[in-house]
């Protein structure tokens, strides 16, 4: 494999080798060192609200059944039958107490445990040949949630999700904790675009510079009140922990006025005042910044905007959560959900959904123009000329690294991390620096799991390091999926 040291060094000084947006070898490295280690969003708890509810989601090629079991616990199991490897569940969404493999009929409870194994006695001699008891579908190596967002990691030793997200959680709350009940998700709309997955993540993280140009048409038709070129630079971009985003500067007013300005009814404002922290409220009420787009490394993004939804001057806010699911170095599946506070009035929910459909998602008018850019960029990045071009991603800093506009002080911005007003590509650099950190660091070898096999003999010993204890049931009942996998290793 090509030595990528030079590429990573260029990225770290804000000079981006253009081919990173369409490079097979780098994609293989991303697969192993980012998607094999980082916490990846798979679903929200509201998508599987009732016992037995499930959705099937992927992390690259790996399919997982994300389900709520009969006890209400959230589980993610690798969607592969323990017998011959057939896909156990071929639906995308549903409710089931059991999954029966269509090939030979092994069946599993929605908590992953095997319950049915046809002809167990005749075929295996019963428990003596195949220990059915305690066997379960392979759990995701690690699973954790934050505000109902379910993440999995392919690394059994992944750092805790809270640490991984770090201070970005402060900003995540604006999107996902407007009331104690949190959000409910609808969707996703899914579609595939011939674009590299990093471009969307970078764009949502901090590209406020593109709004006046790319989205001119949306402003022209009177849909959006804000993105005049001058206005965007008055907002700030912030980066904290695993993510960062953009904000808009709000007109003068107190907290209530400013939240109502973007279209929240007073009853939602009142709930936010209880649900969000003092500092979270100060960012809006005192500092006058309203969160807009954001990304959390590696491939999860958020939008919060407030368009007009009818022939009137009123605007209405919506939230979207989206994932840039890599298919290859030049193709991405976009999963775009509409999210809304579960306690919002029904009429608000409906109009917020309307706002979402008009702006983002498969038919969204903002989205339409964005994707055209990203497809075109990816296409151009494939060739040999792109290997000679270093893209300048240094907006906001001078040659010696000093900032064009100094960072906001804690008095000007009450959120954690570093925030700047003015045009800048701080966040795109932060995101790609994390990308470089991951690509540089090899992953540890993964353990294998044997399914009810015999004790490993001397011949197998060489490869058995890290394998399941011979003959032991791979899973004892354990509180979390993480512990289950650790118990096997």
């Amino acid at each position, binding site marked *: 494999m090509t030595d990528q040291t030079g590429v990573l060094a260029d990225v770290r000084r804000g000079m981006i080798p253009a081919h990173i947006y369409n490079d097979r070898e780098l994609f293989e490295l991303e697969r192993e060192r980012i998607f094999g280690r980082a916490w990846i969003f798979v679903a929200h708890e509201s998508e599987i609200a009732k016992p037995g509810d499930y959705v099937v989601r992927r992390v690259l090629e790996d399919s997982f059944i994300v389900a709520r079991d009969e006890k209400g616990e959230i589980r993610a199991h690798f969607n592969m039958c323990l017998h011959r490897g057939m896909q156990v569940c071929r639906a995308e969404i*549903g409710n089931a107490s059991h999954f029966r493999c269509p090939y030979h009929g092994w069946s599993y409870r929605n908590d992953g445990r095997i319950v049915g194994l046809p002809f167990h006695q005749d075929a295996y001699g019963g428990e003596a040949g195949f220990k059915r008891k305690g066997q379960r579908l392979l759990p995701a190596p690690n699973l954790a949630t934050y505000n109902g967002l379910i993440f999995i990691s392919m690394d059994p030793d992944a750092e805790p999700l809270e640490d991984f997200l770090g201070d970005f959680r402060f900003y995540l709350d604006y999107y996902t904790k407007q009331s104690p009940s949190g959000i409910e998700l*609808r*969707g996703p*709309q899914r*579609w595939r675009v011939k674009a590299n997955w990093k471009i969307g993540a970078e764009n949502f993280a901090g590209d406020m510079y593109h709004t006046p140009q790319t989205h001119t048409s949306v402003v022209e038709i009177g849909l959006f009140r804000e993105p005049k070129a001058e206005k965007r630079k008055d907002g700030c971009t912030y980066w904290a922990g695993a993510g960062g985003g953009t904000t808009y500067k709000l007109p003068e007013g107190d907290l209530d006025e400013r939240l109502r300005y973007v279209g929240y009814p007073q009853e939602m404002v009142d709930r936010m005042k209880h649900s969000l922290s003092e500092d979270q409220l100060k960012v809006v009420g005192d500092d006058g910044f309203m969160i807009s787009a954001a990304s959390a490394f590696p491939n999860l993004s958020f939008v919060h905007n407030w368009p007009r939804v009818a022939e009137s001057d009123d605007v209405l806010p919506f939230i979207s959560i989206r994932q840039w699911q890599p298919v290859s170095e030049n193709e991405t599946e976009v999963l775009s959900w509409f999210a809304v506070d579960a306690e919002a009035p029904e009429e608000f929910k409906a109009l917020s*959904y*309307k706002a979402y459909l008009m702006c983002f*998602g498969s038919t969204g*008018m903002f989205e339409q123009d964005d994707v055209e850019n990203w497809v075109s960029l990816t296409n151009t990045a494939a060739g040999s000329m792109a290997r000679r071009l270093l893209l300048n991603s240094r907006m906001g800093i001078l040659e010696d690294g000093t900032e064009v506009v100094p960072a906001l002080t804690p008095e000007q911005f009450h959120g954690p991390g570093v925030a700047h007003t003015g045009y800048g590509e701080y966040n795109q650099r932060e995101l790609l620096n994390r990308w470089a950190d991951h690509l540089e660091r090899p992953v540890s070898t993964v353990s294998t799991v044997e399914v009810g096999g015999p004790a490993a003999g001397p011949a197998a010993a060489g490869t058995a390091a890290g394998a399941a204890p011979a003959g032991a049931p791979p899973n004892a009942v354990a509180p979390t999926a993480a512990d289950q996998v650790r118990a096997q290793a």
Partner: protein
Amino acid sequence: METHSTRSVLGAHASRLQRVGATLPFDDERHLAAHRWLVDEAWLLDAQAYSDWLALLTEDIHYVMPVRVTTALGAGFDTSPGMAHFDEDWYSLSRRVARFLTEHAWTEDPPSRLRHHLSNVRTFATEDPDHLIVDSATLLFRNRGDVHEGSLVSAGREDLLRRTPEGWKLARRTIMVDDSVMRMQNLAIFL
């Protein structure tokens, strides 16, 4: 009666008229009128003559395209609950059209080449002689640029046509797309 239009989040304003009886004979003048309307409409959409197209919609139009999902046989649903690609009224469709008419809708500059292939047209009467239900299949081929692969969207549609002083107009359209994951970079098109 439960339909995708009644079930959708934003369809409360839509007409509830449903089909009555079997398909009209292919030589019935109502069928001929409906078929002609659809072919003319397909031509407008191919030509991206969107303001002319908008003029063919009634003010209470409901234009809905649910998100299809793969579910187990017997699950009782095959669309994503509470989510659609389009769930439009006249205002939102008029904004989409207005955007295409600006000079800055970059996604369609240069424009796509579009062809809406129309087939399987079946016409039904309703309780109201001024309304017809028309089922059809549409296959949209869209190509952009020179060497990009073209993309396809296949869908079935159910339309409610209303007779007005200016001729037949579309009052309700339900689009059942055959993809769960769309293979088109965006839906900056109409079906």
